[in-house]
């Protein structure tokens, strides 16, 4: 079958009333899952796995997949409105999304988040449609040393996230790395920082910690200041203008690339790509100093990246049956419940499931855009609630979300203690973003380094073993150099101004 007739076949499968209905149900539930902090697509799909006993294969997979990419649309809502990151991939959206909301531009932020998600998600799907087989090989392009260098490249973002004081940013980053050491050591199995507690031996849950750092930290600071309302400025316009949308197109394109290709790599989570996209936008922007204060690019970039990442993630899943992320691993479970094994055989034996799924994702993205844009009006009304009522609601929502992650009471303590830490950081003007980035990267960073060293027998030359390694090292040096240069330039600017 040539490609055009495959595409026609795909949409023929997807545009049946049944499949359209279940696609709509899936993306709606996905949005809901994304909005609720804590409950992520992984647990969302897992909770609905029993649906596989009721629905035929195509409809069931379409619905469950809808939850996955739908959640990447909804995750930004609470990040923007109340600074609660629904999941890791929404953490970056808090940086500029929440300041935008405070300035009365929540509607624009929410709308841009939806549009960026649609644009990048759909473009990623195009990549999936036309290049699934060749791109799948990318999944094995990186070995352990290459992955380590990739994570190091992501680590250099810490500098641009540090804001005015590089030292404070590095302090936050180190603390972030320290938190990842709590638990069993990756290589020797020794318990570190466990203080005899079995819970600590299993490590901290970082989503719970992020919820605490952002949401609860913010509530504590605001309570101290006696804040009456989140919005401190008058709402100007709800939706972004056409001119603003056109201005954002290069951002949408860049975030697609940054999200899509790493999304194919097993082990690179949407959250990492959202940080990278944010950093890239800041570097190419004419006004990098505005990032963190509320620029639409700061919302568009991470939101686009995490949606492109989910599209990219389907490549190794469908081509080989290798899920690059935990949520897709559960989706793989759904395939198995239907007796299906994703891989080259499924392309041959059940093209209706594979291509029907891909076509349904285009439709799902359209549905999500149509669903989310009008909802923006409704969401921003939430901000009119007096803070006296909103603040406790935020705390309760955060704690419920934290508990729902693993049904583990210990995570509530994590959230509260990191909430206190977030408050202290804000008082001391220490940036939180580097801490969160290091929490996401730290575990893998250490493990990959040590696994590479075991593999090479202790020989550091393993990190220059391939052309890709060299490219990554050059990228790290360039990234470091540029970041430091940009940092010095902006601190000189502020010094000159003062």
């Amino acid at each position, binding site marked *: 079958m040539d490609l055009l007739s495959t595409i026609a076949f795909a949409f023929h499968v997807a545009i049946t009333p049944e499949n359209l209905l279940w696609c709509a149900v899936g993306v709606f539930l996905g949005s809901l899952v994304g909005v609720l902090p804590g409950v992520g697509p*992984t*647990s969302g*799909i*897992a909770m609905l*796995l*029993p649906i*596989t*006993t009721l629905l035929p294969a195509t409809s069931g997979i379409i619905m469950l997949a809808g939850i996955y990419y739908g959640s990447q649309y909804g995750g930004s809502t609470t990040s923007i409105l109340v600074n609660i990151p629904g999941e890791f991939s929404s953490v970056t959206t808090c940086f500029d999304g929440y300041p935008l909301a405070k300035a009365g531009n929540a509607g624009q932020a929410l709308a841009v988040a939806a549009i960026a998600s649609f644009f990048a998600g759909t473009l990623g799907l195009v990549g999936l449609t036309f290049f699934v087989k060749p791109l799948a090989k990318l999944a*094995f392009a*990186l*070995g*352990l040393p290459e992955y380590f260098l990739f994570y190091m490249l992501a680590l250099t973002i810490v500098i641009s996230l540090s804001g005015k004081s590089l030292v404070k940013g590095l302090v936050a980053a180190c603390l972030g790395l320290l938190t990842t050491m709590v638990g*069993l*050591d*990756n*290589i020797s*199995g020794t318990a570190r920082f466990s203080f005899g507690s*079995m*819970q600590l*031996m*299993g490590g901290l*849950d970082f989503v719970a910690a992020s919820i605490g750092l952002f949401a609860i930290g913010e509530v504590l600071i605001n309570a101290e200041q006696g804040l009456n309302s989140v919005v401190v400025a008058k709402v100007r316009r709800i939706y972004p203008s056409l001119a603003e949308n056109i201005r954002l197109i290069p951002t949408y394109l860049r975030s697609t690339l940054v999200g899509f290709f790493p999304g194919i790599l*097993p*082990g690179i989570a949407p959250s990492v790509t959202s940080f990278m996209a944010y950093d890239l936008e800041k570097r190419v922007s004419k006004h990098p100093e505005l990032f963190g204060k509320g620029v639409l690019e700061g919302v568009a970039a991470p939101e686009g990246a995490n949606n492109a990442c989910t599209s990219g993630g389907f490549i190794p899943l469908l*081509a*080989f*049956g*290798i*899920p690059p992320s*935990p949520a897709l*691993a*559960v989706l*793989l*479970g759904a395939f*198995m*419940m*239907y*007796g299906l*094994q*994703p*891989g*080259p*055989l499924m392309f041959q034996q059940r093209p209706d499931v594979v291509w029907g799924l891909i076509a349904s994702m285009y439709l799902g993205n359209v549905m999500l855009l149509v669903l989310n844009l009008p909802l923006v009006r409704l969401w921003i009304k939430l901000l009119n609630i007096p803070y006296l009522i909103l603040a406790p609601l935020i705390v309760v929502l955060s704690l419920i979300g934290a508990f729902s*992650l*693993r*049904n*583990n009471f*210990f*995570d509530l303590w994590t959230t509260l203690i990191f909430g206190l830490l977030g408050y202290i950081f804000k008082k001391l003007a220490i940036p939180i973003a580097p801490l969160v980035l290091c929490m996401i990267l730290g*575990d893998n960073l250490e*493990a990959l380094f040590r*696994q590479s060293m*075991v*593999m090479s*027998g202790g020989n550091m030359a393993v990190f220059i073993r391939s052309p890709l390694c060299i490219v990554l090292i050059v990228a790290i040096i360039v990234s470091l150099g540029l970041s430091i240069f940009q940092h010095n330039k902006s601190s000189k600017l502020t010094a000159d101004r003062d």
Partner: protein
Amino acid sequence: MNISMKMKRSLIMCGVLSLVSLGSAYGAAHSVKYPNKPITLIASFAPGSAVDMSARVVAAYATKKWGVTVNVQNVIGASGVTGTLQVLNAKPDGYTLLLETATQSSFLFATQTNLPMKIDGRDYVAMVTTDPMYFFANTGTGWKTLKDAINFLQTKPEQFAWGAGAYSSYPMLSQVRLFNVGGVTMETIKKSKMVVFQKGNAPSIQACITGDVQFAMGWTYDVSSVLATGKVAVLAVNAPERTKDFPNIPTTKELGYADAILVPWYGISGPKGLPNNVVKAWNNLLKDAASDPVGQAEAAKAKKIWTYLPDAEFKAHVMNEYEKTIPIATALGLRK
């Protein structure tokens, strides 16, 4: 007027309370049919994991057969201990049960000596499924049989890189057992490149595909994926019999390594003191699951094999595995 209202109210309260207590006493005195309300089956690992999938298979089957919902709840943390403790501390009425595996019993107690629980501190209800593991080798090595791999380890241990999965996991312990049975001493094994992937076995398999490690293990649902990449050969299945899904892959038994057989099992256990009718009900349900078309359908989906062992045999199996693991754990320095 007030006093008589008060009297009236307290009389009504007394009446209601006595009815309620009579009712529950009645319920307790006459053994109520089990199950008569939803059961919570706790899986201590993430959705999509092997434990979780086994739990879902069992839950789906039990729900169909009993007409009562069996809910799978994922309680994650502390490498499975959180969920285990939650069940052990629950009321032993049969409505909170654990779907467990060696990581929560035999392997756990073989490696950790300071736990707030004992290996026989729970009631073992029945073994439900097993999920055999396979030995993988990167095609770049040119190894065609297990013997090739073991010979390489024996002669050039410093160059032998193997993906050991997480500490005290089936992949790690199975490979060590294979090497021992194949005549490789612990000193030689310690000279090899044991690459540990604490977060789970998937990165271990990924490393085998890319060639960073030459030898690794995986489950049935990993076999198709690795074969599809064309970069991994499946050398053997570590079980007494060939599997239905891959009848062309020889067993370690056929290849002469029968003592290395270590098949991951999944079973149900509960807090100590479960009533007899609860244990009997589960055993009756699971006894015929393998030959029941409903059971077969459920298990085939998740590629699990019904392997029923009644309560006493199940406990014996766990204890046996525990005792066999202690020396390996000690030699590897895992026993703390």
